[in-house]
């Protein structure tokens, strides 16, 4: 569902991603790990079409090099770094934009709200609150809800658990795991290697723009590469 084939990008003259090849098949939950500055967000933006690769191809839901505005409509839910809720819109409006991004119409939004309410009961209590005034934890939940409400088949998330209390992190990962169990394809970008590798099937490790490890989650958990990158 997501395929990067020898993708390289640069910021001005500075190369960032170097020949990154990454695949997430239908129904897979794959995590992308890497220390600060490794290029994880750059990869997210490349998948979302915000950054054009200098070489290589990006294919999302079968569509090569799709424009950013078209990605969501391909059935892709996006949770960008720092959540990026529209602060001056209400929670309901944020959710509505998330719904229409994927569905391209308003029909069925009320049903979508009901479904979201089952996953995130607390989100429904805050529909009329300005998103900018939500607590960090609430924003994280609304950002996930906004990505999910249109029932995308693919989910791409950039450090969704950042800044959450341990209890909320577990809750968050439980929801992601549940979505995956229901058939969603997930690319989870994370710093929290321990949690991510517990729920993912496969993982990639990015360091200074290159994939330095690519293996089953089980194997990565024991890998010295991961240990060295994170704990040395």
């Amino acid at each position, binding site marked *: 569902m997501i395929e990067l084939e020898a993708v390289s990008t640069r910021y001005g003259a500075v190369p960032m991603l170097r020949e990154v090849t990454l695949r997430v098949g239908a129904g897979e939950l794959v995590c992308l790990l890497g220390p600060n500055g490794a290029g994880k967000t750059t990869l997210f933006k490349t998948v979302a079409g915000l950054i054009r690769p200098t070489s290589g191809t990006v294919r999302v839901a079968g569509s090569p090099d799709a424009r950013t*505005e078209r990605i*969501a409509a391909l059935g892709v839910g996006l949770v*960008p770094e720092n959540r990026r809720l*529209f*602060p001056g*819109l209400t929670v309901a409006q944020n959710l509505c*934009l998330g719904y229409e991004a*994927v569905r391209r119409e308003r029909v069925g939004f009320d049903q979508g709200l009901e479904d979201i309410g089952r996953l995130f009961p607390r989100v429904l209590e805050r529909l009329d609150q300005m998103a900018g005034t939500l607590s960090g934890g609430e924003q994280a939940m609304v950002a996930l809800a906004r990505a999910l409400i249109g029932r995308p088949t693919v989910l791409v998330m950039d450090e969704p658990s950042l800044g959450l209390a341990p209890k909320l992190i577990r809750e968050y990962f439980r929801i992601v795991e549940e979505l995956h169990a229901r058939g969603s394809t997930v690319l989870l970008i994370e710093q929290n290697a321990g949690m991510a590798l517990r729920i993912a099937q496969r993982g990639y490790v990015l360091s200074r723009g290159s994939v330095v490890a690519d293996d089953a989650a089980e194997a990565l958990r024991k890998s010295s590469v991961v240990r060295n990158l994170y704990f040395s």
Partner: protein
Amino acid sequence: MEQVVQQLINWLALGAITALLAVGFSLLFGVLNVIHFSHGDVALTAPFVAMGVLIALPAAGFGVAIIAAIVLVGFMGVILDWVSIRRFRSAPPMMALVATVALGIVLRELIRLLYPNGSNPHSFPRLFEGTAFTIAGATVSWLVVAMIGCSVLTMFALTLILYRSPLGMRIRAVSQDLEMARLAGIDPNGIFQATFFIASATGAVGGLFTASYVGLMRFDMGIIAGLLGFSAAVIGGLGNMTGAIVGSLVLAGLETLAQAILPDGAAYRLVVAFTLVLVVLVFRPAGLLGRVPVPKV
């Protein structure tokens, strides 16, 4: 008493026109992050467009010419964005400033060259004739009633569009986080076009009333009208619609007051108005109601 009421009416009339221009500056800045310095010039082409339509199609009638001018100026905004302003969206603010100022000069000179006898002032008819009523001895013309009424209605309509419509939700999403809006499937170019149309058409209404109020149109009227509208938006807080309205009323109030109490006050109108702009910029750079300070260019 009669004098006071008359001045109050002048104040509201002036505030109404200023607000029609100021909201455009504010809306465009909020969405594009570009200060569109030629917005006043775009707005003040409206009287020329209206008279031009009348010259080209005398059978159309004045009413049709006015409506046509509002719509055409709306599209003019869209076209100007397309040929020029959109190219400066991510450029340094200084470049956008120079570009939009240059665009204003081009517009003024084009009017001068293309409109018959364009260097000279031309009379512009009153959009509404006659006296509506007298209150405490002061006469209120239908024109002034229409100016205030149209301005209030326009503000009301803009509020509905921005805060109650799907388009408004998208306009605000783009103005709050352009990149996230794109991730949410919103095509920013469509939103920019809609915003330009709304702002320019609103400005056209203000431009038509301005010409009608003073009874004439001149190719360079957009300079002062634009500066006043921009100043009102800055005083209220750029990017904030309520701020633009409040700023317009404050600015118009001060102008009217200067005119009423200073000897030879009319001559000092602009001195007083722009002094207020300076004072606000020094002490409250974000404007009376604003949160975003005017970007340094």
